[in-house]
């Protein structure tokens, strides 16, 4: 009973926007399968009534005041941009799936 199937691997790759070759799909299926198998061990533990540790520190209500601070100069905002047009980041067309 494989821990993960190649189809699931392809689905996850799509969710993560990672293009994989068929060889990679096969390799990751096997490697992820091993890791997930090891992870299944966690099911043997009884965690009834145990709260998850989403936050390492018992902090609450960490705020900043509503004050304007200087933004980055525009050249710095754009300095690492792969493609710029009219002071904006240019990207290839966005297809709305239908």
């Amino acid at each position, binding site marked *: 009973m494989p821990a993960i199937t190649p189809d699931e691997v392809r689905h996850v790759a799509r969710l993560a926007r990672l293009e994989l070759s068929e060889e990679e799909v096969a390799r990751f299926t096997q490697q992820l399968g091993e890791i997930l198998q090891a992870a299944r061990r966690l099911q043997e533990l009884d965690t009834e009534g145990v709260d998850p540790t989403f936050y390492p520190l018992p902090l609450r209500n960490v705020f900043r005041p509503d004050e304007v601070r200087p933004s980055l100069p525009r050249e710095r905002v754009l300095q690492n941009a792969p493609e710029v047009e009219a002071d904006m980041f240019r990207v290839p067309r966005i297809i*709305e799936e239908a």
Partner: protein
Amino acid sequence: MQDRPTLAESRSAREGLPPGWEVVIGLEIHVELATRSKVFCGCSTEFGAPPNTHVCPVCLGLPGSLPVLNEKAVEYAVRAGLALNCRVAELAKFDRKNYFYPDLPKAYQISQYDRPLCADGWLDVEVDGRTRRVGIIRVHLEEETGKLVHSTATIVGSRYSLVDYNRCGVPLIEIVTRPDMRTPEEARLFLEELRRVMLYLGISDVKMEEGSLRCDANVSLRRPGEQRLGTKTEVKNLNTFKAVERALRYEAWRQAAILEEGGVIRQETRAWDESSGTTILMRTKETVEDYRYFPEPDLPPVQLDPSWVDAIRRSLPELPAARRRRLEETYKLPAYDASVLCEHPALADFFEDVARRTGDPKAASNWVMSEVLRLLRAMGMEPADLAGRETWAAYLSEVLDLVRAGTVTATVGKEVLEESLRTGQPPSAIVRARGLEQVGDESQLVQWVRQAIAANPDAVASYRSGKEQAAGFLVGQVMKLSRGKANPKVVGELVRKELGPPGQG
């Protein structure tokens, strides 16, 4: 395939809804909060800046950046929740909503999933004289995305797009209603009242045209009496209140057409297309993203002190519904007047100021509803701009006093008011300077009446042959001669006196 736009379109051109069906509507509304800085960083939220000039490592999502929560955004969100009669959560937290899109710099949006700030509220809406209560499921805080500009007018067919991150990180509240609305009109009225509440709270300028108020709608059909909900579709791209109503009406007919043919509604996201008056398929459920929500590790939870929440509750301003009632009761105004005056809190404030000064609420109401609103539009202003303009309230009050005293006619009064507002000169000064006092001297009036009669034999003949309205024409002529300064009522009496009763040869 299952779309029959032509059929549905022709049906929806009528006002009604598909007979034999109950239309179930829920709304998802986004409101941009008017804090000075963004929700997780100190960049300015000011509208209209040149592209990418209000951006920092945090809202640009640079590697290593971290969010820190703006306390004012939390306060505004709580105010909204309280005004909508919600329960404020004891413990609220943030979650990451993960998806890829160019306007989302971190490829996740910090939002709230299972522990929103506020939940379980309601808002009453007046529909056809009845009160409908619309449930509010939740009000939560999240961050705005950037703005996309496409190489063509819309995203469809565009070869590339440009991204501006100025708006990215502006605080948003998302308000989700229960599917309690039953007609498109109700939905529009609800949205309008919700907008008014936000204006009254002063937490947003809620302008749909600027994107600070956005609305998506969910609509499904079921047979009357049926308990289960039908499959719903989501409708987006609703840019005006009218569009909300028209789109929902179209969608109801579209769904009815499908169901009546024995078809099945697919859970889809559809975009309203203003030019064709139809909704167009955007995405089916199969292509819906898996957002993989999980608690945002970079932001500790928010645990609101009940006494702080109480202080906010006590400091809430008078809300639109209460204000309308009070205006009706205190000033004995008809519901219609109260409704118009309470469109904007600044307008209602202005009205009350004038009413108090002049002691004639009905006159104040009439003039505010007609003249003041007209003048604002003519001057390129809005009701919001009345805030702080006590001098204007004083001026209007003065004009009303002058009219009531008979010093000037109403017609002249309107001119004087306009000049007063534009020049900043007090009305009495203008009246004096231009000699606009109403002419009360009867001999002068009689002179003008005789002049008008002499100059308009046709009208006189018309009147003598029985057409009473001709007298009105003659009164108008006298008003011209007097440059508006004659008292029309008195002139009317004089005309009749001169000519005798109508229809006398």
